[in-house]
């Protein structure tokens, strides 16, 4: 597994995507007039995108098939991808949080802990859900189908968003009382809400991990 980690980390730095994001974060810091809490939100997304890029790369030119001829197993391959995602999410959140706090300190602003917690929480929810979907899809399907499935899911999410906007936000749709109560509770308890959603997202990751482990053993390359 050490070899797979080395390969993926090298690939991340070789593609220079890491540097692009760091430069963007630094630019935001230079021109910011208040603490850019958004950086904390994008940390997880950025790390998942990097791991997804390594998955896509493995599908091209039979890289994955070659890797499985080396002293590594299919199980190691799956574990490495999920482990790398978690480590990258923690690392990028730490880096983004540091930049954010340093900027708040530089600007002499009071640190808004609630804002940080909410952004961090939402970031990890989206990151976990994205990772669960992308990693599982890249392992279950071959590259062509994988791209197609991602496109279909993306399209479906887009349509659902439009639907929600049309029926929920406009007044043509009356929401059932239990949902309205739930929304009210969420507004009053943002940290608890984010915590619950995070637990659900982590469970989704666990399910995705188990499906990936089962599926990779049946696959042929």
């Amino acid at each position, binding site marked *: 597994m050490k070899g797979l980690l080395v390969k993926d980390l090298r690939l991340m730095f070789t593609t220079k995507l890491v540097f692009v994001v760091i430069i963007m974060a630094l630019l935001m810091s230079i021109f910011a007039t208040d603490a850019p809490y958004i950086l904390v939100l994008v940390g997880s997304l950025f790390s998942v995108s990097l791991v997804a890029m390594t998955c896509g790369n493995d599908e091209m030119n039979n890289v994955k098939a070659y890797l499985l001829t*080396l002293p*590594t197993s299919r199980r190691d391959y799956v574990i490495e991808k999920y482990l790398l995602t978690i480590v990258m999410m923690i690392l990028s959140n730490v880096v983004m949080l540091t930049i954010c706090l340093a900027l708040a300190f530089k600007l002499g602003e009071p640190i808004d802990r609630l804002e940080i917690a909410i952004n961090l929480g939402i970031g990890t929810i989206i990151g976990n859900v994205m990772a669960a979907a992308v990693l599982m899809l890249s392992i279950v399907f071959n590259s062509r189908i994988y791209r197609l499935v991602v496109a279909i899911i993306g399209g479906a999410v887009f349509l659902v968003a439009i639907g929600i906007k049309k029926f929920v936000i406009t007044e043509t749709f009356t929401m059932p009382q239990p949902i309205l109560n739930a929304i009210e509770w969420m507004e009053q308890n943002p940290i608890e809400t984010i915590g619950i959603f995070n637990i659900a997202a982590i469970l989704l990751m666990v399910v995705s991990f188990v499906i990936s482990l089962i599926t990779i053993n049946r696959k*042929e390359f």
Partner: protein
Amino acid sequence: MLKIENIKKSYKGFQLDLSMEIENGSIVGLVGANGAGKSTLFKAILGIVHKESGKIYLNDKDITNLRTKDKELISVSMAEGFFPEAFNAKDIKATLKAMYKSFKSDWFDEKCRDFGLDMSKRMSDYSTGMKAKMKVIAALSHNSKLLILDEPTQGLDVVTREEISEMIRGYIDEDEERMVIISSHISSDIEKICDRIYMIDKGKEIINADTDVLISEYAIIRASEEEYKELDKNYILATKKDKYSYSCLTDKKNFYLENYPKLIIEKTTLDEMLIMMIKGDK
């Protein structure tokens, strides 16, 4: 020893059904047309595809039960499949070093230098020949017992092919327990370095013999229609009818030389044997 016993793998319109043995210290060549099953066999050995039945033993150990540690005993260069194109030799070296306990770092550097491979250049910027050399260097850069080479000389010039052949010979000379299985479309390369040759077609073995036997015993008989009628067909493997004559492949050249002195009996090549076995009547 690598022992393959009745290995079976089916795809739509194709079935691999093979048995073979590779002795320690030997180089075995696999020859066949495109789609004959060479790569499928390699993938089955390596567990990249799941075989339907049969057993594969490496030094008496069932290869399906090989642990990650045991995979260090195998070196592979695949026709399709290698490290990402964005990688340079340094990235490849770092990854292999983390993968193999017995990785020969200095040897890797030395071979890259000898072959003129720029360590900081990306694989995507390498020529076909450079990529092929890098694949073989990567495969040989650790201590293994079995070397699997799928089309290692594809697209290479004669000088580079000779250099790669030298490396393969060097690999086997270093340790008498080592063995090599190599597939190639270039039959002259196979003929030059292999001790034994397996010809396969549609997943099945059509010829299996020592290289020196193939060279000394196999021949093409050119016969007219009358000569063909008189010919003892017991040692004819395949026959191809031309416009006014017959070409027959035999594995008993001396029998026909002694009994049919007037016949034209020509030395044959691996390519010609393969064509006769695939296209000819058996």
